[in-house]
């Protein structure tokens, strides 16, 4: 494939200059080697350096370039340009305050993440080498620890849009289950207590937008279901 044009419609907002956000139509020529949306955005940035977005690793590990692509949240670096209908409509992640263009303020998202204490709690003195797990116990952490906190899931969740200050959100709950499921963690009860709340956990109505958009193919809804199962087996 040779050089080709890509049409964009991009959400633009610079609070220092603009009274209100607007959509900008812009196109850019890309090379045959440009395959991912982020490649085209890099070309676009070279053409108009006022266009702002976050990026870092360009390979789906850092989670910086999450954005709303043609109405669906995803990572620009993992999205094939050819899979997208043009003009490609780019908007910032929904439900979070916009700082500028495609850059959102993630404070609320990380506040929820921190609220579930995303670290191992174990008060025993650390052994000489490492805390061991059986392969079966370790297996349970697969599909949980891979989360890169890109916020695609939480910002596609209507429950999170409505109550971002009170509902932990799919990303936070996936991380919560990652530590609840960890046999080396000793704070299971406290963690379940922390989530037993009509807002923090039970705002999840199994809409499953989170599963639909996760660029890493993870399943927060399943993890949330397992937290609920554990609460049930603790209570009955």
């Amino acid at each position: 494939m040779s050089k080709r044009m890509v049409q964009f419609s991009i959400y633009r907002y610079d609070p220092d200059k603009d009274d209100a956000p607007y959509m900008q139509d812009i196109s850019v020529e890309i090379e045959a080697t440009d395959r991912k949306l982020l490649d085209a955005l890099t070309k676009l940035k070279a053409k108009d350096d006022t266009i702002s977005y976050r990026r870092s690793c360009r390979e789906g590990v850092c989670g910086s370039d999450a954005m709303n692509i043609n109405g669906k949240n995803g990572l620009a670096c993992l999205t094939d340009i050819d899979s997208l209908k043009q003009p490609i409509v780019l908007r910032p992640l929904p439900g979070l305050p916009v700082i500028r263009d495609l850059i959102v303020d993630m404070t609320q998202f990380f506040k929820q993440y921190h609220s579930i204490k995303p670290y191992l709690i174990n008060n025993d003195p650390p052994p000489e080498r490492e805390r061991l797990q059986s392969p079966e116990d370790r297996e349970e952490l697969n599909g949980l620890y891979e989360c890169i906190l890109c916020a695609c899931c939480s910002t596609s969740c209507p429950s999170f849009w409505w109550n971002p200050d009170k509902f932990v959100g799919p990303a936070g709950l996936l991380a919560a289950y990652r530590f609840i499921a960890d046999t080396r963690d000793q704070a299971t009860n406290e963690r379940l207590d922390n989530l037993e709340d009509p807002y923090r956990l039970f705002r999840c109505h199994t809409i499953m937008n989170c599963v639909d958009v996760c660029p890493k193919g993870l399943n927060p809804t399943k993890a949330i279901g397992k937290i609920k199962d554990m609460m049930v087996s603790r209570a009955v």
Partner: protein
Amino acid sequence: MINRIVVGAHYGLKDWIIQRATAVIMAVYSVLIAAVLLVVRPSTFEAWQGVFASGVIKFLTFLFFVSLFYHAWIGVRDIWMDYVKPTGLRLSLHVLTAAALVGYTAWAAAILWRL
């Protein structure tokens, strides 16, 4: 009162289980009553009365209504929690909803045992 966001009411599991249990009760009742009506095929008021004169049907129907109202309580309360932010107004709506549903329960009982 200082404006801090507080969460951690430490309830929710019971409501979540009850919402599912009541849904199952309503689904089973719907199938049962449909089957009974298909078999009996009541065409007159007296025939309808006859179906609901049975103690078992009365009990199951009342159980259905209690399930419906409890299910509705959780659903409507969730709507108030999502859309109504001022605590005083929300509490008032919770009380009104609960009062209405308790009233409906008594009303359902009155209708069933009057038949």
